[in-house]
């Protein structure tokens, strides 16, 4: 298969790509189930508030991206943390990536099974999704990052369909009442962390420093990406409130997809199937990016940095991930109660990683006295 150069760096991507990366990494799986957990209309404010919090995180992130170290990739991290710590951290990172990968892939394949292929085992679907992702990831980081453009155009346009729910007779203002919380229940905390976790994803940009062209506008683009996510979340949540009403939301498992089933078109009847297929682009993009990160992290963790990257190495990694996913599917995902355990785990892990990664890096940067490199 020739020697692959998975992590080679020929060109850097500008702010637009950074914006799309932030946006698409935040819109993975959770937005499909989110209204089911948020339920109450006043959660709109929490969505917006956490969105602003996420903006702060991105600010820290952009500080790191602006340093020279970030564009050095692995060597930059080694310079900051030391070799041993980097190996240890990437070993921990493996679990975070694996968990995130599994939750989004298993979640999505379960949705596909419910709505499109009810007779198919989800393990097969996972297999096919990973097959696609292996192909994309095999093209290297550069091409995978570029794939975000396709993924964005495939998935963003489907959001616009939901405008339909903002008009009467479906939309009634009273569905949004009460606007302020009258009592704060324990479940609301779960919703809060879910939101926090849904905004996670951009922390992986930390490792993509070498491929991003950074200048003083970078933060602005990251902000745009995040703001777009906030708008999408709020938009979808309000649409689902209009469509189901706050009381029914907790009863429907996949609110967004059930809403898309209500669309009608004289040519296509099952618009939900088409939307789901388009959503697959986003999933494939994210999963391939995470596969590459996983591969990179595993190389660092097991001290194989000196060896060249190869297709075989990636394949064996993908195979390992596949086995891990099938195990998780069989042990956890297929039974509803254990599935919530895995979901909760990801909710917590996502929140932690999004909160800590930029913070820790900036703190270490301060300590080490790393300076901004001259902005271009």
């Amino acid at each position: 298969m020739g020697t692959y150069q998975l992590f080679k760096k020929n060109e850097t991507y500008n702010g637009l790509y950074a914006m799309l990366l932030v946006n698409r990494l935040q819109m993975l799986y959770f937005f499909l189930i989110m209204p089911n957990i948020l339920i109450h209309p006043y959660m709109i404010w929490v969505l917006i508030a956490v969105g602003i919090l996420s903006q702060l995180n991105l600010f820290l992130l952009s500080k790191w991206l602006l340093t020279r170290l970030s564009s050095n990739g692995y060597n930059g991290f080694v310079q900051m943390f030391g070799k041993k710590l980097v190996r240890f951290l990437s070993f921990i990172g493996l679990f975070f990536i694996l968990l995130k990968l599994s939750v989004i892939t298993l979640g999505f394949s379960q949705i596909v099974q419910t709505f499109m292929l009810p007779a198919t085992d989800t393990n097969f679907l996972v297999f096919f999704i990973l097959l696609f992702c292996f192909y994309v990831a095999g093209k290297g980081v550069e091409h995978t990052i570029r794939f975000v453009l396709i993924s964005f155009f495939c998935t963003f346009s489907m959001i616009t369909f939901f405008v339909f729910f903002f008009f009467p007779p479906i939309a009634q203002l009273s569905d949004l009442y009460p606007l302020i919380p009258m009592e704060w229940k324990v479940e609301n905390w779960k919703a809060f962390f879910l939101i926090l976790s849904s905004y996670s994803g951009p922390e992986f940009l930390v490792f993509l420093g070498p491929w991003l062209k950074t200048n003083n506008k970078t933060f602005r683009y990251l902000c745009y990406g995040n703001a777009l996510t906030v708008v999408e979340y709020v938009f979808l949540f309000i649409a689902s409130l209009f469509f189901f009403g706050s009381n029914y939301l907790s009863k429907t498992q996949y609110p967004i997809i059930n809403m898309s089933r209500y669309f009608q078109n004289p040519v296509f009847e099952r618009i939900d199937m088409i939307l789901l297929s388009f959503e697959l682009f986003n999933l494939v993009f994210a999963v391939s990016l995470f596969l590459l990160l996983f591969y990179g992290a595993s190389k660092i963790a097991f001290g194989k940095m000196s060896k060249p990257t190869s297709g075989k190495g990636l394949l064996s990694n993908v195979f390992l991930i596949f086995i891990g996913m099938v195990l998780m599917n069989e042990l956890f995902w297929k039974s509803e109660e254990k599935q919530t355990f895995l979901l909760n785990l990801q909710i917590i892990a996502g929140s932690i990683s999004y909160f800590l990664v930029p913070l820790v890096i900036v703190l270490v940067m301060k300590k080490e006295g790393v300076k901004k490199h001259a902005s271009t």
Partner: protein
Amino acid sequence: MRLHKKICKRLILLFMTFWLSGCAPFTENKLIEEISPVTFLSISKGDKGKLTVSTIMPPLSKEKKFVMSQEVSLLKEGVQKYNLNFYQEMKSGQMRMLVISDELGRDGIMSIINVLLTDPDISPRIYLVIVKGNFDEYLESQLDKDENFDYSFYRMLKHYEEKNQGELTVVNLHEFKNLLYTPYSDPFLPVFKLEEDGVNYEGTALFKDDKLVETISSLDDRIFQLINNDHYLVVLPIQKFEIVLGHVRSKVIVDIDSSYSTMTYTVNIDTRIEEYRGEKQLFDPKQLENMKKDIETHLEKQTHELVKKMQELKVDPLQLGIQTKRPFSKPMEEKKWIEMFEKMDIKIKYNINIDPLTDANSKRQNL
């Protein structure tokens, strides 16, 4: 090396197309010749708590159609029985209507609604219809005359659903479910009566939770369309005054006082006179004014009776309870609302705006 890579890629592509095209052993067989996508199901009460499920088979192929009817205790069991009885497999993806008999409606249809909601093949847009009379027998008698009876029935419902054409109540599964499951509202469905000459629209069935409690018809149903469902009527005949109002548009303003004891329900109507066979000189502004007053009081009285009936039955299809929701206070419990609703003094007020008869005006005055 390059050749090797190319072959590998092609093999992967071939592999994927093969699996994704559905030629896989683990997907459902949906070959069009081998399935019968039914367009409707009719459910009525059978013996001893059982259900009678019937439909027209085969829905697609050009064979002689017949009515297939099964007595089952579970709805989906009916699907299985069809499959065992007929060479094609039944699929519910093309289902457009669910016809429920009114006896079954009186017993409650929650379980049936839940079956429909759980199946991702069944669209949330299927129409729910209540039928009075024996639908199976009617189908049998219709098959000889009109093979596509089911299709024309569906077209009729679809016509009146789109853009709120007025005339009749059309409710789909999603709307019914929302009214059923959200507080401060009760669902309603159209009622059709089977007569010798065909299926006739009778009125609207009001539900308390999932049980049918009352059917409103004629003028009551017209008023219901006007104040709740469509806010539009093509014609509104009022026999008492020998007058027909046309293109009636309404706007409803509901005002509830802070103690929730009185509610003012104002209906503003814009309309014009389409036909008049009475004695009054409607070209005279004064007489027209009198006529307007008469119609207003008549409609107010009728509507008041209708609302009174709803209060007695404790059903709220008008979703009046929603008016108590406020942006900055906790919504009250549904039970409490129903208690209040029962005792509430509801004042109905109509303001009718009739276009003066301009074209014919001068002629009649000269007479």
